[in-house]
């Protein structure tokens, strides 16, 4: 028994309000976890990208520059808050809040370790999919409410990306659900004797790409697109509200890393170390891969983004779904290690065929 679950169970069930203590405890845990992880994520990203670019990155504030995110946060929070005259004041104010809340909600169904989660919904996966796309509403409100053309373009791009990528993402998850037979996140982790990244390699790739597109990590960071749209949807935001968006950006990345960890990397399971540590380590590793791609790849164009979703990921996800369904239906009892081999072969063939058939975007338009 370790700290987190012990603390959770330390509150006797017969205390007045029983369930609410559990609720309160995990709310605090989630908020602290998200804030600390976001700070860590910012640190990892800046230092990691620094080292990939042959430099050090922030190393002056505190030991090894560990306090850099704290300084950033403090400074941004204390900056002047500007609302442009042409902005829609209410929408402009409301947007960051709406964007931020769903990110916290996602963590309600993420198991930090066995049984340690706010609520083990039996439709956990569905909840994640539903909630994670609400942020887009906030982003679009930001884009529209700012009264800035760059913001609007960025927000439009984000909506388009989320609407398209939701489909391959859900289909990729369904592949996992078929193997597990349950929508509950706890059950999915329990079912992963072999991590699903091996059983579902194609599904993992599709989910990873779709997730990066949905949360606008590079190479799909079209809605911010520094070099094109200055700062995208948050061009007109400063101070506290900008800090919220900045937080959303990284909290979403952490949330997606946590989801990937839960669904594909067998969540908190692992030898030797305590389970919650395994969960955090895996989340950080997934986030690091996101940083890594961000440091390496150029950005795709909006029509190529759409093309990738509809012409490549969607068919691939359907193939993955069918193959998984057939496997589970025909050989329900054999070892999953056989599926590992078969599915990796399927993934390689699907990508190979996709390469030959895929044409990204339509390029030039007659003007």
């Amino acid at each position, binding site marked *: 028994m370790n700290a987190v679950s012990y603390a959770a169970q330390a509150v006797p069930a017969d205390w007045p309000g029983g369930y609410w203590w559990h609720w309160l405890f995990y709310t605090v845990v989630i908020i602290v976890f998200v804030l600390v992880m976001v700070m860590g994520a910012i640190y990892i990203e800046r230092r990691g990208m620094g080292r990939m670019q042959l430099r050090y990155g922030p190393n002056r504030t505190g030991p090894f520059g560990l306090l850099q995110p704290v300084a950033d946060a403090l400074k941004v929070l204390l900056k002047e808050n500007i609302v442009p005259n042409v902005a829609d004041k209410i929408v402009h104010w409301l947007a960051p809040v709406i964007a931020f809340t769903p990110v916290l909600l996602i963590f309600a169904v993420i198991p930090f370790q066995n049984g340690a989660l706010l609520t083990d919904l039996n439709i956990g996966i569905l909840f994640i999919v539903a909630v994670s796309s609400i942020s887009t509403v906030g982003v679009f409100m930001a884009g529209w409410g700012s009264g800035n053309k760059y913001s609007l373009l960025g927000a439009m791009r984000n909506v388009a990306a989320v609407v398209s990528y939701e489909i391959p993402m859900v289909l990729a998850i369904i592949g996992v659900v078929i193997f597990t037979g349950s929508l509950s996140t706890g059950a999915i982790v329990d079912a992963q004797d072999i991590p699903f990244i091996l059983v579902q390699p194609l599904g993992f790739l599709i989910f990873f790409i779709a997730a990066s597109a949905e949360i606008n990590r590079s190479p799909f960071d079209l809605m911010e697109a520094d070099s094109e749209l200055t700062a995208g949807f948050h061009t007109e935001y400063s101070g506290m509200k900008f800090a919220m968006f900045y937080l959303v950006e990284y909290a979403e990345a952490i949330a997606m890393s946590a989801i990937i960890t839960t669904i594909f990397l067998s969540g908190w399971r692992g030898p030797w170390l305590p389970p919650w540590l395994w969960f955090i380590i895996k989340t950080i590793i997934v986030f690091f891969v996101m940083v890594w791609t961000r440091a390496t790849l150029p*950005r795709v164009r909006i029509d190529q983004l759409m093309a990738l979703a509809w012409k490549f990921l969607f068919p691939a996800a359907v193939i993955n779904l069918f193959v998984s369904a057939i496997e589970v239906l025909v050989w329900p009892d054999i070892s999953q290690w056989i599926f590992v081999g078969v599915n990796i072969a399927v993934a390689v063939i699907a990508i190979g065929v996709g390469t030959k058939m895929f044409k990204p975007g339509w390029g030039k338009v007659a003007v």
Partner: protein
Amino acid sequence: MTTTQEISLQTEPFVLNMGPLHPSTHGVYRMRVTLDGEVVLDIEPMFGYLHRGIEKLMEERTYTGCIPLTDRLDYASAMGNNLAYCVAVEKLAKIRVPERGEYIRVITAEMIRIANHCLAVGSMLNDAGALGTPFFYLWNEREKLYDLFEMLCGQRVLHNYIRIGGVSQDLPDEFLPALEKFVPQLHKFINEFEFFLKQNEILIARAQGVGVLPKDVALNCGISGPLARASGIKRDLRKDDPYSVYDRFEFDIPTAENGDCYDRYRVRMEEMKQSLHIIDQAIKKVPGGPFRAKVPQIIRPPAGEAYGHIEGPKGELGFYLVSDNSIAPYRCHIRSTSFINLTALRQMVKGWKIADLIVIFGSIDITMGEVDR
């Protein structure tokens, strides 16, 4: 892979003001972009935000005093501007440059070409959204060249090194050994960089077939340099109108056929290799003797006019000088490469997306200091 497709929805165009201070306008360039959604219908380039009146200022300065001004034209490749100006003045005043001076000039000119292409490729990739990494790798190489320039003339960016009739100071003793070390090291780096990006699917998707500049349009617009060579115009003043001692070196002119952004990137990478080849030959052949002809600080060229041009890193860079036998040029016109290369931008971007506009603009490789002068 460019297919053309009609837009079926009736939409209203809107105008986006890009610049003058936009992250990817390489300075202070401004465009009024008419957009239909993401599609660029038309652009109206506007400049002059860095117009410092260099041509007017040159009329007030002595011939030597103009050299610091030329540095600040194309600040990404200051040495090239110095050379072009001095070539023009020497043509006007009929001054012969000693052998050693000519070789030093060739070495520095090729060094600045490499430095400029490092920046050009890096910033194009940066515009394409590769967040800094390729840019910083290339900048690291540029930094090595900066070191060498600093050793040579004491400044990293604006060199003010080449003088009328030669160069300002002789090579320091440790310069050539350092350069000899640099050449194989850069070869190694270029190979690594090609491995890094040449085959990258996203770069290919973003750059291949994008912003095609047909050969005839390029010629009609007066476009020169890597931009023209990527469109298949095999013209390089180092071969076609050799200045300095370029006729003594062996090198190729890399060209490409398609004239898209990817080809421009390829041509620049190849040119870096060719420049290294020239430097390699020049190091071995640098003769002794004086590095500067005996030219006084203040010269009075005979009345007349001369047009001196060189193949600068960005293309044909020329100075048209009119002298009235006084200590300052009567009129100096700068045939600035960037300004004329930019002419084709409007044709290249029509119908492409706003994201392509940025990449195409980046692939032209301009410096606003040279456009606005």
